[in-house]
């Protein structure tokens, strides 16, 4: 296989796994935009969502019935979070909200394991994590079907969310709420509905991300740590930008794979584990608001 095909294979593999990071990061961005809080519980939500999905399927429901059930459950989680965690904390500082989400993550992790047990489960989406044959025949590249599917799903999701934010009344209301809860309340934007909607949407995004990750690495507690991979993506892309996390996800995915393959051996491998964080630190130094994050407005 010529070198250039190998490079493209590495690059495409990286880009596609990057999309999966983006998908996880997207959940963070949604909630950060609406509640200006770093949702510590996002990883737990990913875990809980996909565990619910698998659990429901084990009860005998087919895929197409289990999906709406899992979505319904995540919407309920979103509503409950608004009612019992956020509503009592309206107008409190962002630190308070952050602490609340840390607490929430423990609750969700606990409930998930209480309800569905602690076993590692397999999730079969009917899409195999195997190379696509005709690509392999033509070019010799190994590109996974699952990666391609994840890429398409994530793209659709991202496009619809971007439209929601920029074009709709709800999207504008959501950005207003993100800027200033109390002011949004004062002009009659129903905070409750916006928060409920956002947390439910973040729950659904978590479900999709969890399904794709779970199909690859099994549905297990370690999914909680997928959220850690989203952190550099968020820093690079900007906490408030949907397109930002997409680009950053691709950047992180592609660069970590390329670096691992070409420079990794010089360091004895394992570069992809820490490379994204180094990249994130560099971004913090040079462009703290991220690639597309909202500028930090400071009037003097």
């Amino acid at each position: 296989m010529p070198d250039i095909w190998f490079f493209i294979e590495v690059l495409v593999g990286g880009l596609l796994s990057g999309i999966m990071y983006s998908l996880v990061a997207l959940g963070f961005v949604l909630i950060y935009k609406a509640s200006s809080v770093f949702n510590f519980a996002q990883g737990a939500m990913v875990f809980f969502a996909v565990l619910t999905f698998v659990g429901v399927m084990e009860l005998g429901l087919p895929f197409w019935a289990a999906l709406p059930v899992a979505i319904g459950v995540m919407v309920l989680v979103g509503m409950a979070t608004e009612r019992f965690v956020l509503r009592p904390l309206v107008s409190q500082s962002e630190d308070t909200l952050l602490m609340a989400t840390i607490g929430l993550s423990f609750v969700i992790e606990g409930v998930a394991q209480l309800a569905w047990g602690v076993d590692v489960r397999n999730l079969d989406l009917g899409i195999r994590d195997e190379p696509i044959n005709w690509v392999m025949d033509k070019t010799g590249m190994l590109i996974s079907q699952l990666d391609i599917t994840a890429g398409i799903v994530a793209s659709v999701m991202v496009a619809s969310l971007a439209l929601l934010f920029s074009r709709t009344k709800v999207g504008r209301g959501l950005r207003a709420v993100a800027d200033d809860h109390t002011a949004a309340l004062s002009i009659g934007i129903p905070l409750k509905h916006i928060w409920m909607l956002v947390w439910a949407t973040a729950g659904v995004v978590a479900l999709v991300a969890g399904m794709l990750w779970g199909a690859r690495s099994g549905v297990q507690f370690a999914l909680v740590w997928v959220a850690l991979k989203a952190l550099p993506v968020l820093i690079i892309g900007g906490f408030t930008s949907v397109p930002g996390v997409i680009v950053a996800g691709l950047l992180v995915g592609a660069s970590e794979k390329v670096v691992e393959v070409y420079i990794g051996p010089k360091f004895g491998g394992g570069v992809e584990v820490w490379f994204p964080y180094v990249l994130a630190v560099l971004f913090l130094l040079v462009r703290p608001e991220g690639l597309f994050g909202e500028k930090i407005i400071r009037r003097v």
Partner: protein
Amino acid sequence: MNVAVKSAADRPAATGAGPILAVKNIEVIYDHVILVLRGVSLEVPQGGIVALLGGNGAGKSTTLKSISTLLASERGAVTKGSIEFRGERTDQLTPGDLVGMGMVQVMEGRHCFGHLTVEENLITGAYTRPIRGAELRDALDKVYAYFPRLKVRRSSLAGYTSGGEQQMTAIGRAMMAKPNMLLLDEPSMGLAPQIVAEIFEIVRDLNQKEGVSILLAEQNTNVALKYADYGYILESGRIMMDGPAKALADNKDVKEFYLGMSSEGRKSFRDIKSYRRRKRWV
């Protein structure tokens, strides 16, 4: 205590129907322990401009937030008394309900949405109204007619505009809800006297041309009494005095305590401070 005698004739003139807003003897407690308002009553007649005056911590903002029910999100609660807007009790209503009924509060410190453009700020003001397209355009043009400066700045992020422009954005945003009553909290705060005058002129215009009733909380007693018809003076959570704006502006105590004048004419700021330390109403 030296409180001006109130007579029925001094009350704000009611035009036909009852007042648009009636606050009756409310007590407000924050966090279950901090007593902030102790028996505040006031009325805003249909189409009137009423000023709520007083120093820092007198309870002006709290009074406005009790009326708009924004108080609930700050852990405050009206524990006694009642508030009626257009004859309806507001204790079970949310700020959103009240915006729907036509009452909008413009909060102290402007509170524009910094990351939205000026125009987007205005559009969010119409969130409770089912308008779009041409109707929305008309509503925007109306705001721009009152605040031509906003039209020039419409595509700038509100966070980058000047203090005066932010105050205009905040008032314009409230207008987008098509209110019949505005609660303005310290519109003069941190602004140059010229801008303050500009904003108050527009507020008076709104009142006269659109028939919007206005309740205005101000520390700038001088300006507020110039534009208001009626005033209430609040100190330590109580109404200490009320009367027509002219009568208040001429009152000896008001002059001394709030306008920095005494019977011997204007005093230096330094003297006033020490004087106020010795002698106050409460």
